[in-house]
């Protein structure tokens, strides 16, 4: 009976094991975007705008161009006319655009205007987008802590800060420093869970992208 038990167990367990081990899965996030944010000041410590940079990966770049019916020229570059057309098409931002730059002042969200000044270039086979987000109400930074988080809330897009943040304009003595996202054990397990979501699924956790965000801390003396 014991032998029969073992055999039955192995026969029942093995298909189960297989079904689990080869469980179909495709990972969330799906599109990876590098880039960063620069801070534009005027008159000392008044923060006026953010200059945001997105750099798509090579494959996403080609897919993006193709989906707009655009192609590379014989040098493997983008013709100027096509580039301008792409800027025009991309300037029509989607309704659910969440900007990737999330600014907080002492943990209160700072309102940003709709993106302007979009420009696009092909750099080493990667599409680079730059645009400006003006602060709806420019703020004078004193003792407070300004923090910028670089993410898209559903985490379909994974943003990483790869460009060192710059402080531009008449900036007094403000300093921007990077706070890279730190993967702790709890987040690692969430990341594993997300890795099993396919393209058409949205994570249950609200604003999940924020949990994996690279951040920039802005401190003025």
């Amino acid at each position, binding site marked *: 009976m014991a032998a029969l038990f073992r055999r039955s167990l*192995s026969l029942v367990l093995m298909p189960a094991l297989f*079904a689990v081990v080869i469980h*179909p899965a495709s*990972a969330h996030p799906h599109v990876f975007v590098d880039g960063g944010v620069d801070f534009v000041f005027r008159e000392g410590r008044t923060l006026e705008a953010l200059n945001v940079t997105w750099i798509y990966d*090579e494959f996403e770049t080609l*897919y993006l161009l193709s989906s707009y019916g655009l192609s590379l020229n014989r040098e*493997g570059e983008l013709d100027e006319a096509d580039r301008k057309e792409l800027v025009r098409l991309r300037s029509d931002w989607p309704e659910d655009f969440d900007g990737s730059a999330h600014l907080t002042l002492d943990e209160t969200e700072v309102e940003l205007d709709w993106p302007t000044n979009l420009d696009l270039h092909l750099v080493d086979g990667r599409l680079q987008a730059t645009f400006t987000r003006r602060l709806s109400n420019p703020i004078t930074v004193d003792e407070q802590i300004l923090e910028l988080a670089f993410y898209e809330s559903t985490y379909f897009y994974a943003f990483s800060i790869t460009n060192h943040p710059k402080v531009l304009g008449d900036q007094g003595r403000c300093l921007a420093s990077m706070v890279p996202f730190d993967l702790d054990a709890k987040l690692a*397990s969430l990341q594993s869970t997300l890795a*099993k979501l396919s393209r058409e*699924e949205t994570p249950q956790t609200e604003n999940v992208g924020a949990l994996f965000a690279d951040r920039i801390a802005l401190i003025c003396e």
Partner: protein
Amino acid sequence: MRIVLLLALVGFGLLAGYLIIDLGAVSQWAAEQQRSFQNQMASAVRGLRSGEPGAYLALLLAAGSYGIVHAVGPGHGKYLIGGVGLGTSVRASRLLSVALVSSIAQAIWAILLVYGGFLLLEVSARQMTVLAEDILAPASYLIIASVGLILFWRGTRSLFKGWRDTGHAHHDHCCNHAHGPTPHEVAKLESVRDVATLVASIAIRPCTGAIFLLVIAWQMDIRLAGALAVLAMGLGTASLTSLVALSSIAARTAAFASAGNSAALPVLASTAQLTAGALIVWFSLLLFQLTL
């Protein structure tokens, strides 16, 4: 027997819980590899556009490697093939050809779909992706679920037939002899219809990576290279599904060899088949409801 099944199910539950945690790491690794091979494909595509020597080969190699790592992580064919290998007494050569043919058919279907769509229907790239994700993916899961149902049904039927045959050997008149084949015959998956259903259920859903590459190749006017690259991708996927096919059959053979010639063998065979069938149904319906 019932206690055995119950214990097995509890064991499975615990094991599944444990495995699911580690699985994320595997699919994450696979996703990273896919990303890197996708970017290699992209740089080969740019190379092809500017007439760089070696770009053709680079594209095929990157696509083939993408196919392999794609099959490690996401994908729906492997668990069906693995389930069939474990649950039925299909011949190794047969299951291997199912693995190969379904991957190639999947690649050809992707090419027909994307190029045909552009050529005949003038659909946009976006519509193409939506078709694959919103219509073909759920369709594929439903067909896979029906394959699982067939396995489950056949397993259950032969299990009951086995019990009846041993329990009421002298009351044969109450059972219709044309009722069904013996448990040994049942699980062989010999008919053309069985094999065609298996292949179709896997092939109907092209992988998103293949669609993206074909959309790019069409737009960048390197259409033949794009089609060949997607075939290379299919061969890459086939190499991994073949591995799954072989190891599932090996595992089953080992398990049955240890059972020797005992009288319980037909019962075990039927149980394995209906379990595999039920699991296939469960997983594909799980995937199906996620696409809704």
